[in-house]
């Protein structure tokens, strides 16, 4: 590009989009050509206007389908606490008023004496102790082959590998 040539619109667009190989030549020309510098400035203003467009607000929450319904308890209405207090007061008054009637109407309940309860518990306890003294542990089955320490270590190693592999699979997302 000669310094006397004006910069084309395509070149100006590519320059602002940072998609030109002729950057140095364009800048050199712009420093000496007011007309091209003015055209660049106009295009730059257009870029600014386009990119400074404010964002519009949504009219609904797009996150709602992904969020579960709130498990918080419903708020207690203001009129409820005085009502509860009033109900409790009426209930206590009714109970006091009903006491003489209850005394007359309810049949007397026969309660067992302390000594008879104590003897009953002692008999039960002795029976348990007898049962425990006769208890025998079941005998374990015997293997037909000899279980050497090598077998045990091998089995332990296999189980450990399975356990590690299983954990690796379960936690693969977190390891990434």
């Amino acid at each position, binding site marked *: 590009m000669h310094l006397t040539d004006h910069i084309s*619109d*395509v070149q100006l*667009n*590519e320059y602002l*989009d940072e*998609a030109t190989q002729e950057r140095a030549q364009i800048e050199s020309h712009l420093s000496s050509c007011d007309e091209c510098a003015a055209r660049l400035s*106009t*295009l730059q203003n*257009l*870029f600014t*206007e*386009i*990119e*400074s*467009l*404010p*964002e*519009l*607000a*949504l*009219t*609904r*929450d*797009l*996150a*709602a*389908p*992904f*969020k*579960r319904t709130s498990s918080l308890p419903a708020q207690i209405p203001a009129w409820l606490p005085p009502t509860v207090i009033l109900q409790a007061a009426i209930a206590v008054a009714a109970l006091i008023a009903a006491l003489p009637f209850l005394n007359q109407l309810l049949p007397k309940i026969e309660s067992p004496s302390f000594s008879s309860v104590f003897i009953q518990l002692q008999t039960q306890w002795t029976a348990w102790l007898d049962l425990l003294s006769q208890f025998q542990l079941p005998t374990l089955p015997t293997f037909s082959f000899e279980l050497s320490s090598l077998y045990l270590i091998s089995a332990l190693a296999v189980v450990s590998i399975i356990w590690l592999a299983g954990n690796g699979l379960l936690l693969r*997302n*977190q390891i*990434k």
Partner: protein
Amino acid sequence: MTYFSAATFSHRLLYYTLAMNAPSDRDLILQARRGEAEAFGELVTRYQTGVFNVCYRILHERSEAEDLAQESFIRGYDRIQTFDIGREFGPWIRRVAANLCLNHLESQKVTTELDEERDADSAQLPEAVQEVKERSEQIRLMLASLPANYRLVVELRHYQEMSYGEIAAQLNMPLSDVKSHLFRARKILAEKLHAPD
């Protein structure tokens, strides 16, 4: 009253503590991969305005834009297992939205073509529109009046900061077409925006 003041204070303290310890996008993606939909909901809360605006700039119809923004997040949730955790979520979900809008426009090509014809005739904007003084609204209307493929390249270049090559790959069009669409779109916008009232 002291009780209420203390409660308010403790709520605010809790809020600020939570805000300071807000999980990163990466943490939320990992939680979403484990099936925690609420974690994805938090990501939606963070990016929904940006995604909606991508759709709105391309479609210029609020209800459709909101539906497609919602659809973008549903697609995003479906693809969360294969999402490259090294990438940023915001630009990715905005590209998903742009792609959806592109497909939407292609599926409604007949209507769009009719719109373009109508828009081509509307070089002289109605008086009611000319009376709109707010510059941003004016720009929005000008963008909406562009043909659909011009709107798309403007969206991808100016708002999603994609290079010519990336736009060409995304829209499956030759690089020369990307450039010509973009430069023509800018020329139209410049003429309309700087035209005397």
